[in-house]
């Protein structure tokens, strides 16, 4: 039972790290990045390639986060900023096109076959938790997700950029009128969102099999998280990720045939009750 809850926390944690990137970008640009799952997938492959080349997981993780942050800066400059005056759906379609291109690129470079990455040696063992043994690496993922959640909320609450991000996600126009350079803030935020996708991608590489389509699976779950939590809400995404993680895991264990229907039913239920998600304002 305890192990099931912990496993649910692992998946919920990964989902949170990915989904919060979507929330960050949405807050600033009012668009949803359909290529976010592909960023996760690219992050996993970059992490895999660098980690196997150097024989060191942590180098892979660091390089992957850096590469994805750079990709985020690029995306903001060539996609989100030029399209900011268009209907948000234009950005959705363009990022959907990017998704196809990135999947194809990864398929070309690394092939279609499943790849796997070993967890770092320091975390390869198991730990005893209340008499049950649990893989150390999975515990590390939970701790990492918690650290991201704490770090992010401190950043948003304490730093100047965080203040701008929060202000901008409430009212962009007024924030810009007050002299905040939203384009500059946006580069930082989109880079952070992409870097988080890279982080969750690489961290999940030892847990999931790597394949070019791994991005779409988790993208859909993170969409459920974002919509259920309320678009643009950080705390909403946090709680929704925890709940979806638990439901997903219990579903896989107890009702495997219907496991993927459970988050979906929850989502429909929540939306009947509150059309803008449980922490959502009007979008």
């Amino acid at each position, binding site marked *: 039972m305890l192990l099931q809850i912990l496993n649910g926390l692992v998946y919920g944690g990964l989902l949170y790290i990915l989904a919060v990137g979507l929330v960050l970008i949405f807050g600033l640009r009012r668009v949803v990045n359909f290529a976010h799952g592909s960023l996760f997938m690219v992050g996993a492959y970059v992490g895999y390639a660098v980690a196997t080349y150097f024989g060191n997981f942590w180098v892979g993780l660091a390089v992957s986060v850096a590469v994805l942050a750079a990709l985020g800066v690029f995306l903001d400059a060539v996609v989100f900023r030029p399209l900011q005056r268009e209907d948000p*759906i234009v950005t959705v*379609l363009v990022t959907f096109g990017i998704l*196809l*291109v990135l999947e194809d690129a990864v398929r070309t470079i690394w092939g279609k076959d499943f790849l796997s990455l070993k967890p770092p040696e320091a975390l390869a063992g198991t730990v005893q938790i209340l008499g049950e043994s649990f893989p150390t690496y999975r515990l590390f993922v939970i701790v990492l997700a918690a650290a991201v959640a704490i770090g992010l909320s401190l950043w948003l609450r304490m730093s100047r950029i965080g203040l701008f991000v929060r202000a901008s996600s409430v009212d962009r126009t007024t924030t810009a009128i007050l002299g905040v350079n939203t384009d500059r803030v946006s580069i930082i935020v989109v880079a952070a969102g992409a870097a988080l996708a890279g982080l969750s991608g690489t961290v999940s590489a030892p847990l999931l099999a790597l394949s070019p389509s791994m991005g779409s699976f988790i993208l*859909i779950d993170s969409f459920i998280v974002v*919509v259920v939590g309320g678009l643009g809400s950080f705390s909403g995404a946090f709680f929704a990720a925890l709940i979806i993680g638990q439901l997903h895991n219990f579903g896989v264990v107890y009702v495997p045939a219907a496991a993927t229907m459970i988050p*979906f039913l929850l*989502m429909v239920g929540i*939306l009947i009750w509150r059309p803008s998600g449980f922490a959502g304002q009007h979008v």
Partner: protein
Amino acid sequence: MSQPSERIALPATPALARVSRQVWLALGIAIIAGSMLPSAVTSTLAITLLTQAVIGGILATAVGLVIRQTGLVSFGHAAFFGLAGYFIALPAKHGLWPLELSIVLAIAMPTLLAFLLGLVIVRIPGVAFSMLTLAIGQAFHEFAVRARLVTGGDDGLAINLPRTVFGVATEVFQRPQTMFVICWVALVGVLFGLHLLVRSRFGRVTTAIRENEERARFLGYQTVVPRALIFAISALIGAIAGTLFALYNGFVSPESLHWSLSGSALIMAIVGGTRLLWGPALGAVVFFFFKDVAGDLTEHWPAMIGLMLIAVTVALPMGISGALTKLLDRIRPAGVRRDG
């Protein structure tokens, strides 16, 4: 003095009487030309491709209708397409009831489902609607993959077709030359039906809601049910495409529920343009031929399609059909504004 009586008589005239002569002409030409096409095109490969393109065109028309009448972009239409196939394959596998009844159910059930879902999800604005439809569509795909005992999982199901369907030899549905004509007539029929729909009072109410939901509500219109109805009509069209596809292939698999099919249908609709009803179908033809040509030249056709989507979205916001009519209007001295 005769005018008022005419005006009173107007609602009584059936919608068909208000169809302009050009539309009747176009309808006639389309059906005749389509029926003659298989005898003109000798290559079986080309006619197979065209049949696929027309089935894709019906699905794209369904996606385009939702965009045109509600402004919402669906990423989950494969659900209705694929469900229709399973509604045909499953009863046939267990010999539950005649195929004719399955076909009726295959079209009716996804429509009903879409209406009920629509009541919940059309209230979700903009981009969130796209995210939701993607998630919902994929839930059906996952279910079809996991529930191996019922659906055969990834292997799919072969459909045991009887010798005749509605008195027509089943073979007719499986030969590309004849199936092309059936699908073509279905597509033309769908487009004609939509032409009547968007000009009806209901069509104009939904356009008003798309333009400004709040104001439409202010004027006393119900805004959720009409949009759910549009979503249901769109699912009905998607289910027609799925039914034709299942009869044509004699086989269903979870691939017909996968979000990449929803994505392709959306790409067809966007590339063709959704302002004009026939835009998405044109987009489907372009999509299939582009895929065929690009597939011969390079392995990277998915990336090519992605780039095409980006290029059209940014450079031709009204799609190919929009660009074509703009061009025609420029050539013609007194451009008549047309829509539908």
